[in-house]
Each structure stands twice: as C-alpha cells, then as structure tokens.
C-alpha cells in the first residue's frame, strides 16, 4: 500500500511540474495569440483590449494562480481561444481523446498480433528465409517515416478516404465520443463498419513502428526460450512442434513482449501527432499541433496535461501490475 501511495505522490508531482513547465513556456514564446487568430485584420487597440480581457497581460504567476483556482474551485479548464474559439477545454478533450483512443486501440490490434506472429515465425526459422523477411520488414517498419507511409497509403488506397471518423453522408450522434466502441452496443452495425473503414488507413500507418518493435522483442525472446532444456524435453516426450512452440515456449517469452506492447500503447494513447496530422484525424495529437501553431494557451496546457497524465497512468499501471505479478517487488521499497 505504501508503494501505491508513494507512486501516487510521485505521479501528482510529475503532473504539476509538467503543467508549470508548459504553462510558462507557451507564454514566454513571442507569439501573440490574438494576432495568430486574427492575422492581418486585427487592429492594434483591439489586440491590446483582447489581451487584457483574457488576462494575458498580467504577470505569469498571477495567471498561474487564476488558472489553478479556476481548476480547483470550479473544475474549469478554461476555453479555447483560437482552435475552436469559445468552446470549453473539457468539451474539446472529451471529443478528441476518444478519437485518439480508438486509433491507438485499432493500431495496437494490428500491431500486437502481427508483431508476435512475425517474431515467432522468425525465431522458429531462425536465419532462414522467413527470418530474413521479418527482419527486413521490421527494419523498414521502424525506418519508414509515418508521414511518408501515410501519404503512400493514401495514394494507393484512394477509395479509403481518411480524416473523417464517419462518411460525410452519415448522421450519427455519438453519446460518448467513441464511435467504434459504442456503435456495436447500440446495435448500429452499419455505423460500426463505416467507422471501421474510415479508421483502417491511419491505424495501419500507425501500427508499423509498434509492430516492428514487438516482432523484434518476440523474436529474441523466443530464440532464447527455444534453446532451453525444457523445450527439448517437451519435444522428446512427443509434443508436436506447434504445440511446443505455442503452448510451452511462447508463454515464457510473452512477458517482455507484453511489457513492450504496454509501453507502445502508452505512446499511441498520448496522441500520434504525425499520423493524426497526415490523416487529418481529429484526435489529441492534432489538437496539440493546432494549439501550438495558434498559440492557443488553454489548448496546449490541457493537451500537455492529458499527454503527461496518460504517461503517468500507463507507467503506474504497468508498475502496479508488475508488483501484483511479482511479490518480490513488494515491501523492499525500490
């Protein structure tokens, strides 16, 4: 219990430091958010007035205080100034985070099975043709930039448009912000399959790097396990080759794979900036890019907090899970 408490305090401290860093950094940039929004058409007096209205002409510490008191007294995260003017940040995050989660999950569902299968195949036929193919494939998967792959995919599969979570002609009011995860439960299977088609390309593009990394970890883990005595024993006792590999060897190689897969999921959940930008996917990563370019302070602050929060939570979950799994980690502290 003391472990969880300590980790919670650490997590809270990490979040606070991340928040302060972003809050101050975005305000020290020379960009004027009013000019960023109104461009050539803002008159100097009105710019000054708008800055004062928003409180951005006050000392930075005062702004921190005002923001934090808003958060803690009213749960108010402020509102967007430029990206979607006037909309509460909480509402914006509520729309964008589900889009990112769906994309991350879809990419993971492609990356994990693909990476694991490729890793196993490569290990079983070590140094053979399958191994070479998998290794070259995984090298390409890590090396080819997502924005390039994205554009390539879009120009090849021109019938699969990206950027919309649903086809233009489809009217569907989502209750939760999740479309893919929610539609089947509401019996909206047409919506579900339409949404699945829309997410396919960005998910494939996003899955390449995690799939490549997972396949490498799975391969080395399997090679290690396959050379151990108990595997030979299993074969000697008459277990088939596939049974030996899948039932005896793989479970032992799976631990590091699950570890890395969890970590990759954390990365994906914190907003795939490049993929979301290339495919115009309306998620957290794209929101952050828009926010930074438009100097939309509230959006950047909140987005950074959401990213930091995701990382803290994922790390926390992985650690807690490890402790639950391995009693030796309890008690002794670190």
């Amino acid at each position, binding site marked *: 219990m003391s472990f969880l408490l300590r980790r919670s305090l650490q997590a809270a401290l990490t979040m606070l430091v991340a928040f302060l860093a972003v809050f101050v950094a975005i305000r020290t940039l020379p960009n004027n958010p009013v000019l960023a929004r109104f461009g050539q058409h803002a008159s100097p007096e009105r710019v000054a007035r708008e800055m004062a209205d928003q409180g951005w002409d006050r000392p930075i510490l005062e702004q921190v205080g005002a923001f934090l008191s808003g958060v803690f007294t009213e749960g108010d995260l402020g509102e967007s100034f430029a990206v979607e003017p006037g909309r509460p940040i909480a509402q914006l995050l509520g729309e964008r985070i589900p889009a990112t989660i769906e994309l991350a999950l879809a990419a993971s569902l492609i990356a994990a099975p693909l990476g694991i299968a490729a890793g196993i195949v490569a290990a079983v036929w070590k140094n053979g043709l399958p191994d070479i193919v998998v290794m070259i494939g995984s090298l390409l998967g890590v090396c080819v930039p997502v924005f390039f792959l994205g554009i390539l995919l879009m120009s090849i599969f021109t019938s699969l448009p990206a950027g919309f979570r649903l086809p233009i002609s489809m*009217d569907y009011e989502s209750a939760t912000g999740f479309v893919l995860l929610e539609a089947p439960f509401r019996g909206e*299977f047409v919506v579900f399959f339409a949404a699945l088609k829309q997410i396919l390309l960005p998910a494939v593009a996003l899955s390449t790097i995690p799939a490549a990394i997972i396949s490498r970890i799975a391969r080395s883990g399997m090679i290690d396990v396959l050379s151990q005595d108990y595997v030979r024993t299993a074969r000697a006792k008459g277990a088939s080759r596939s049974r030996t590999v899948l039932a005896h060897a793989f479970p032992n190689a799976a631990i590091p794979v699950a570890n890395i897969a969890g970590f990759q999921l954390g990365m994906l959940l914190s907003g795939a900036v490049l993929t979301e930008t290339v495919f115009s996917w309306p998620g957290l990563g794209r929101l952050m890019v828009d926010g930074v370019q438009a100097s939309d302070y509230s959006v950047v602050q909140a987005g950074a907090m959401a990213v930091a929060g995701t990382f803290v939570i994922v790390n926390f979950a992985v650690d807690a899970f490890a402790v639950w799994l391995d009693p030796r980690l309890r008690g002794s502290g670190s």
Partner: protein
Amino acid sequence: MPRRSASPLALFAAAASLVLITGCGGCGSSSSSAGGGSSQTLVYGRGGDADSLDPVKTSSGESVTVLTNVFDTLVTYDDTPGLSPQEKLEIVPALAESWRISEDGLVWTFKLREGVEFHDGTRFDADAAVFNLLRARDEGVSYAANFAAIESIEKAGDYEITLRLSKPSPILLNNLALFAASIGSPTAIKEDEDRFAQRPIGTGPFRFVSWQPKQKLTLASNENHWRGPPGVDRVIIVPVDQNAARIQMLERGEIHIADNLPPSALDELAKNPAIEILSDPGQNVGYLSINNEKAPLNDVEVRRAIWQAIDRQRLVDVVYAGHASPAYTLVPPTVSAHEPEIEARSKAERPFDPKAAREKMEAAAKAGGFTLPLRLRLFQMNQPRPYMQQPLETANFIRDALQPIGIEVEIVPIDLRQYWQRLQRGEHDLALAGWTSDNNDPENFLYNLLDYDHINDEGGNNLSRFRNEEMHNWLIAAQTEMDPAKREAYYRDAQRLVFDQAPLVPLVYTEVRTAQRKEVDGFDLHPTGLAKLRHARFATEAGAP
C-alpha cells in the same frame, strides 16, 4: 525501480477484444443512420474548418463561407446569376429596402424590410439592426475599424434606423455589406454569446443545423427567406485539408464543390468530363514586401533594382500556370481607381532586365558602402493564400531572380498563424505578402498596406514600413471626399508615387478558381470571393453521393 513485467493475460485480453470486434462481421446491415436523407444535399469541400461563427469575432475565410450563407446584411453585393463581374460589385438592398443620405453626407437613414424572421422565429426590426451594428463597431476585433466613422446608431421607427457619422464616408455602404456587419438574432446573442458563436442564428438563405468541428458543418434551407427558398435542401460543408484527398473526393462525387485547389491540380481536373472549373478575376494582389526600414533596402535604387529583376509574366506562367496576370500596382484591375498607366510606365522605365538591375545594385553598393552579394532573408508563409497559391515555388522563383543581381536570398518558411505578426514587427528583409479586398475599394489596399498610420508591431498592415507624408495627406483627404472623380484622382496619384518609390513589388493578380461537379448548376463565383450557395441546385435529380 521495480522491473516491469506483465502476464500473457494481457495478450489474451487483446486477442479476445479483437475477436469481439471483428466477430460481428456480417451481423450488421439491419440498422442504418439516415445517409443523406434528402436527395438535395450539396457537399462543399474546403481546405480548413471555420473558427468562430460569430461575425464580429472572426477573420477566417472558412468562417466567412458559412456566415455569408447563414446571415444577411443591410445591403449586399448583387449575386444574380449571369451578371458580369463588374455588375456583381453593385451594392443592392438586402435587409434594408432603401436608404437616403443627408446633404452633408453625415446622416444616413435606412428603411428596413418588414416581415423578416430570424431562424429562431424572432422578428427582425430596427432594434435588431441597431444592436448588431453597435456590436460590429464596439466589440469586433478584426473589422471594427471599418465602422469607426459611425458616431451613433439610433432607432428612428420600428423599421427605420439612423446612422450619424463623424465625417463623410464614401465607403460606408461597402462596409455595411461586409460579413462583419451581418445581422444576427439579438435574442440568441444576448442569451449566450459563446453558444451563438457555435450555433449562429441569422436571417440568411440557410439556417444552421449542426457542427462537429474538423468533421462537418450542416446547414438547411430557410424556406421562408425573403428572397425565396434556396436551390438545395441541405448543405454540408466539410474540411478536407489535404488537397489530394479533396480532389479524390470530388472525382468520386463525395463532394460537389472543392475550393482553394492549386493551379496545376485545377488544370488536371479540367480534363475530367464530370467536372468543370469556375473562374473569376479576383480582387486581390500578391506582392513582395520590402522592409523599408532596413539598410540598404531604405535606398530607393536598391528597391528599384529588385523591381526590375523580377519577370512577372514568367512567374505567372511558371507558378500560376497562366491563371493570374502580372501586377504593377497594388490596386487590382477589378477595383475602381486601378491605374493602368503604371504597367506601361513600368515596362518602359523599369523593364525586366537583370543586367540593368545588377548595374543599379553595383552603383548603390558603391554609394551606400555595402558589398555584393547582399544577404537577405525572404519570409514565406507555409500555407497557400488565394493571392499566393504556391508560396514555396514563388519564393524559389524570387530567390533565383535576385541571385544574378547580387542578392543571396535565404528563404524562411513560417506557419501562417505566426506569419503576419512577425512581418508586422518588421523581422523580415523581404517577404511574400498579399491582400484580398474587403470592401471593393482602393483605400483598402493603399491606405491599409502603405500608410504610416498602419505601421505597428502589434497589428499594423504596412508590412513594408513605408513612410511618405505626401501620400498620407492624399489618402486622408480621399477618406472623406464624396466626389468619386476627385477621390479616384487621389488614389491614382498615390499609385504613381508607389511606382516611383517602389516600397514593395506588386507581383500578381490571381484568378479565383473553384472546381465543381457538372451536376451542380447555378453556383458561380462572386468577385468578392464569397461562396454564395443560394443559387446552387442540381441540374438533374442527382443529389447526395
């Protein structure tokens, strides 16, 4: 730190959810969510999404496309199909039926249309007009200056209002036709301004239905519009920021109209028998800003050398695929007071001639004590503008043009949202810039872009930081000159002075072009650049994709 490890359970869970999701294969198809619904849905695709839909709180062109269809103004530009571009720039009655101006030009009385309702069912009357105009003048961020001459706005009857001006204003009517003077429902605005900015309520030909930002915005026809119902039942406006994707969707018929495409893509699309390209001479100018405050660019001979080094016709052919015309003065030919004499003078006195330009540079270097090559930073916006459709290509063109005359150009690409503020602070030596007319008036170009009243680090549009007392006096005098001929003379003089001093280099006037599917009929481009969708309809019974 504890070592991280996890059980294979996680993998089973992942695999199980995969099965759960894909396992439904084929079990769907019974339920559907109204795809298209009506057969008369027009889909309009553009490069970005709107920001605020409150007329006084935006300056985004993407927002204006929505506003111009949801709101009416007191007066407007004629948009009757089939008129010539010049005829379409006539101001005609809209929510105001008629108006009269006092002898001294200071009191304007507008008689308002009766029987008009906002989309929320409330009545349009004098109170609503006064409320909105005051708001445009007092609360606007971007266009408030256009209404600064209005001293008071009063109700003179249930359907009559009086505007008193502090000085005569020859461009008041044009400014009242601006989207920033749109008339919205006072009830809705007073109730919740933020909500109004996301769910606008006007009297226009279309009423707002819904908006999922970065996804789609839906409008429906206003059957009770005072000019009769529009040609389609529903309009869906979608942001598709990749040009390639927008083109594909147009070719597949998923969208009917696609705006803001690059010149080469439009020429390619023109070959598709299902698609036609609409074209209109725009009211814009793309120019090369020169920072007049930095040495040696403060030397008029250096600026004239730059002027002479750029072959505008070639720029038009290479970068705009011929869909633009060379510019020699800031005021486009479609705007009154454009001075054609400048083009002839430029060709005679300062023709494209790198050798002569190089000689000018060498003489200037000797006199000014600097050495060649001169190193200059050219700022380039990262996103295309209507007047600068291929910024990178244009920047490269200028770099190559200036190299032979002894100027080494370093191109500095900058995101559009930070671009103007950096130019307004004068950080650049050279910069790509441009302007699209707000109100069809030469003042909008000359006073705005070159008068010293507009040099300001936080929002001044005289990016070239040019100061000239004589021109300032002309421009100020023109602001209150009610005699059109005398007023024009001031602007023509100013254009001659600009040619002489070369504080910037006008480059191109571009055509505004839009691609549409041939089943769409009746929609045409307006010279002001506004996408008025009221006349659009489907030629056959073809409708939504």
